C-alpha cells in the first residue's frame, strides 16, 4: 500500500457503487431512448405493438430513473462522507457541470412524469416531443457528469492544483486561473471523453435489451420481436464502429499526450525507458518506428496497477470488437430481411453480458488507470512528469472503514439493484390482456 492511494477496501466499495450507478444510469438512457424510438415508429407505421413497446420501455425507464436517482443520492453521500475532500475540489474548480446538471436532472424528472401520464391525453406529436425532451435531459445529464469524470483523468486547461492545509482536514485544492476558465471543463479533450462515455452507455443498455429480445424471438418467433431487433442491432453496430474507430482513436491519442504512464499500463508496455512498439506506433502514428515510454520508467509509487491490460485489451477492446463484429453481420442479415443461422443468432444471448464486461473493462481502465491521482496533469520532460491530486488526499481523514462497515455499505449498494430488478419484474411480467411484453 502506497501513501498516495486510499485504502483498498474503500476503493473496492466505491468502485462497486460507481459501477452499479453507471449501470442504472446507462439503462435509463437506453430505455427512454428506446421508448421514444418505438413511439416514433408507431407514429409512422401505425402498428399498435410498437405503442405497447413504447409504453413498456417508458415504464422501465421510469423505474431506472427512480432507483438510479436514489442510488445517485447514495453516491453523493458517499462523496460527502468517504471522499469528503473531493467536495472542496468540486466546489473550487469542477462546480459548473454539476450546476448545469441540475437543469438536466430537472428535465429528466419533470418530463418523464409528463411522458408517463399523458400517453392518451395529448396528440402524438406533442407526446413525442415530451419524450424527446426527456431523452435530451438524460443525455445532457450524462454529458455534464462525464465532463467531471473527464477532468479527473485529464485536468482541463488552466487548472492549477495547490497544496493547502485547511483546518487539518483539507490538503489540496484546485482552482482555475480566471473565473471564465471554468468553461474549460468542456474543452475538446473532454468532448471526446464525454461522447465516448455516452455512446458506451447507449451500446451497453441496447445490447442488454437486444440480447433479451434475441432470446425471446428464438423462443417465440414473434415477428414484432424481430422487428425490434432490426432496429436495435444495426444501430449497435454503427455506434460500436463510431466508438471504436473514431472516438476510441481520439481517446487513445489524448491518453498518449495527457497521461503516457496510463497508456503504458493499458497497453502492457512493461519496460523501462523509451522503446519502439511497432504495432502501437502504427495505430497511433501510421508508422512502425515510434518509441514509447515504458511502465517501469516511472516510480512504483505513482504507477497504476499492472492488471490494466486485461481490462483494456481483453475486456474493452476484445469484447467491444466482438460485439461490433456480431452486430454488423447480424445487422446486415436483418436489414436484408433475412434471418442469420440459428447458431449465429444464439450468440446474441451473450450480447448483454459481453457489453457489461466491456463496460467494466472501460470503466476500470479509465478510473483505475489514472490512479493514484485525480485531475491528472502531464508536466512534460523526459520522461514526462505525471502529477495530480493524490487519491489519498481526498479520502476523509476522520473515517476508518472496517471490513464490517465495508460489508454493510456493500449490502446497501447491492440492495438498490435488487429492488430495481423486483420492480422491473412487476412492471414487465406478462399480462392476461395481451400487449407488450
Amino acid at each position: 500500500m502506497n501513501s498516495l492511494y486510499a485504502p483498498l477496501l474503500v476503493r473496492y466499495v466505491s468502485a462497486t457503487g460507481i459501477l452499479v450507478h453507471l449501470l442504472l444510469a446507462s439503462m435509463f438512457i437506453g430505455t427512454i431512448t428506446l421508448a421514444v424510438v418505438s413511439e416514433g415508429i408507431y407514429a409512422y407505421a401505425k402498428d399498435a405493438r410498437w405503442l405497447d413497446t413504447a409504453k413498456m420501455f417508458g415504464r422501465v425507464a421510469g423505474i431506472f430513473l427512480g432507483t438510479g436517482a436514489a442510488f445517485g443520492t447514495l453516491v453523493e453521500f458517499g462523496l460527502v462522507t468517504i471522499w469528503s475532500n473531493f467536495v472542496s475540489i468540486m466546489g473550487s474548480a469542477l462546480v459548473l457541470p454539476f450546476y448545469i446538471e441540475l437543469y438536466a436532472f430537472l428535465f429528466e424528472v419533470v418530463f418523464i412524469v409528463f411522458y408517463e401520464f399523458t400517453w392518451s391525453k395529448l396528440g402524438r406529436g406533442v407526446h413525442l416531443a415530451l419524450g424527446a425532451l426527456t431523452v435530451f435531459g438524460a443525455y445532457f445529464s450524462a454529458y455534464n457528469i462525464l465532463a467531471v469524470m473527464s477532468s479527473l483523468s485529464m485536468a482541463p486547461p488552466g487548472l492549477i492544483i495547490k497544496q493547502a492545509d485547511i483546518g487539518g482536514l483539507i490538503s489540496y485544492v484546485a482552482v482555475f486561473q480566471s473565473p471564465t476558465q471554468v468553461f474549460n471543463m468542456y474543452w475538446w479533450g473532454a468532448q471526446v471523453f464525454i461522447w465516448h462515455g455516452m455512446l458506451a452507455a447507449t451500446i451497453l443498455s441496447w445490447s442488454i435489451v437486444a440480447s433479451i429480445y434475441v432470446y425471446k424471438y428464438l423462443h417465440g418467433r414473434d415477428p414484432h420481436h424481430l422487428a425490434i431487433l432490426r432496429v436495435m442491432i444495426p444501430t449497435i453496430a454503427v455506434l460500436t464502429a463510431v466508438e471504436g474507430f473514431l472516438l476510441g482513436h481520439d481517446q487513445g491519442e489524448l491518453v498518449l499526450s495527457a497521461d503516457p504512464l496510463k497508456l503504458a499500463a493499458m497497453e502492457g508496455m512493461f519496460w523501462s525507458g523509451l522503446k519502439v512498439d511497432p504495432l502501437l506506433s502504427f495505430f497511433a502514428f501510421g508508422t512502425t518506428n515510434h518509441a514509447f515510454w515504458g511502465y517501469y520508467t516511472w516510480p512504483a509509487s505513482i504507477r497504476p496497477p499492472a492488471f490494466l491490460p486485461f481490462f483494456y485489451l481483453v475486456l474493452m477492446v476484445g469484447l467491444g470488437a466482438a460485439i461490433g463484429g456480431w452486430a454488423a453481420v447480424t445487422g446486415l442479415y436483418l436489414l436484408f430481411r433475412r434471418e442469420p443461422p440459428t447458431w449465429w443468432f444464439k450468440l446474441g444471448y451473450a450480447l448483454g453480458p459481453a457489453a457489461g464486461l466491456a463496460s467494466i473493462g472501460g470503466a476500470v481502465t479509465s478510473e483505475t488507470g489514472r490512479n493514484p491521482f485525480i485531475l491528472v496533469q502531464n508536466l512534460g520532460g523526459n520522461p514526462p512528469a505525471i502529477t495530480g491530486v493524490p487519491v489519498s488526499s481526498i479520502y476523509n481523514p476522520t473515517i476508518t472503514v472496517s471490513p464490517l462497515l465495508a460489508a454493510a455499505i456493500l449490502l446497501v449498494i447491492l440492495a438498490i439493484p435488487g429492488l430495481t430488478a423486483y420492480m422491473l419484474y412487476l412492471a414487465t411480467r406478462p399480462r392476461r390482456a395481451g400487449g407488450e411484453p
Partner: protein
Amino acid sequence: MNAATIAVALIAWAFSIHIPIVYTVLGLAWLLPTLEYLGYRRGNENYVSMARNMGAYLITIYAIGGLFGTIITVFLAGLLPVFTDVAGALFWPVWGVAIVFGIVIALPMLGFYYRTFASLPPMRHVAVGYLTAVFMTVIPAMFRMVFAVINYPIGVEITKSSSSIIGFNLSVNLGQAIGNPTYPPLLLATIAAALALTSALMASIHSWRGASSPNAYYEAGRSLGAKLAIAFGALWAVFGAWYLYEVYLYSPTVAWSIMGRPPSYLPSAFLSVYQPTYDLAWLLYLIIALAVVDLIALVIIIRRPSKTAAALTLMVSLAIVDASEVLNGVAHMPYALVPPLGAAESLVNSYGVSFAVQVAHTLQVSTFVSTLTPLVDLIAMDPAILYISAVGFAFFNVLIFVVIYYALVHRGK
C-alpha cells in the same frame, strides 16, 4: 449583489421549496398509519380510503423532495465548498445514518407499505406504516443535529495550528454534539411542524372539495385535518418557544437577530462580534400574525367547508413554514457557525484576542463563500447567469406543480 447574498439567496430558494415538501413527507409518513388505525378501530372506511389516496401523493412528493435535496447539496458544495467539505468530513456518521435509514431502508418500505394496503392484515399494515415513519424520521433527526451545531457548535474543537492556512485545526466530539441543548427542541418543533402543516394541507384540500361536492369523505378529512393541525400547531408553538429559549442562552447572534436585541448576558465587549447581519424580529411577528390567521381559518374549516378558508389555510400554512425556516437559517448571518460565548472567551484567554477574532472571521458565511468559489466569482462577473438560473428554476417549479396535478388529479379523471 455580493457573493454572500448570491449564495444565501440561491440556498434559501432551494430550501424554501425543499422544506415544505419534506415536511409533508414526514407528516404523511406518520398520519397515514394513524388514519388507517383510526379507520379500523372506529370502523370508518373513509379514513382508510384517505390513507390510501394520500399514499400516492406521498410517493410523488418524496421523489420531488429528493430532487431538491440533491439541488441543495450541489448548491452547498458549489457555493460553500470548504464548509460542506468540513461538515462531511466531521459529521460523516450523521450523514451515513440518515442516508441508510432515511432513503435506502425507508424508500423500499414506503413502496411496500403502499402496495400492500389490501394484502396485509390491517394492523400488520399499520405497523409497517409506523415502522416506515420511524425510519423516515431518522433523516430530520440527523440533519437537525447539524442545524443545532451551527447554532451552538458544542463538540467542535479548535486547535491552533501554524500549518493550517486558516490558523487552526478542526475536530468534533460527536458524543458532545448529540448533547447540544438546542437540538431536542429543534427536532421536536420540526416533527410537530411537519404534522401541523400536513394536517392543515389535508384540511384545506378536503374543505375545498367538500365545498364543491359535500360528502362524508371530505367531511371526515376536513374536520380531522383541521383539529390535528390546531393540536400539532399548538405543540409546535410550545417546542418553538423552548427552542427560542435555548437559542437565547447559547446562540447570541441568532437570538439577537430573531428577537431584535442582544441577549442581556452578552458583555458589551462582545457586542460587535455577535451583532447579526439582519434584524429579523419583524419576521417573527409576521409568523405569529400568520399563525393567528391560520388558526381562525382552521376553526372556520372545522365548522363548515369553505373555499376561502381552504385557500387561506393552504397559503398561510406554507408561508409560516417557509418563513420559520428562513428566519432560523438567515438569523445566523454573518456566521455559518455561531461561535459560543464561552469558547470565544476561552480562545481569548488561551491564544489572545487576535486569534479569537481570526477564528470568528473564518466562521463567517462571507469567508466560506469568497474562498474557492468559481461559480460565485462567475456570477459576480456576469449577474445575468443568476437571473437566467432563477428564471429556469421558476419555470421548473411551475412544471413540478403541473406534474403533481397530472400525476394525481388529472390521472384519476
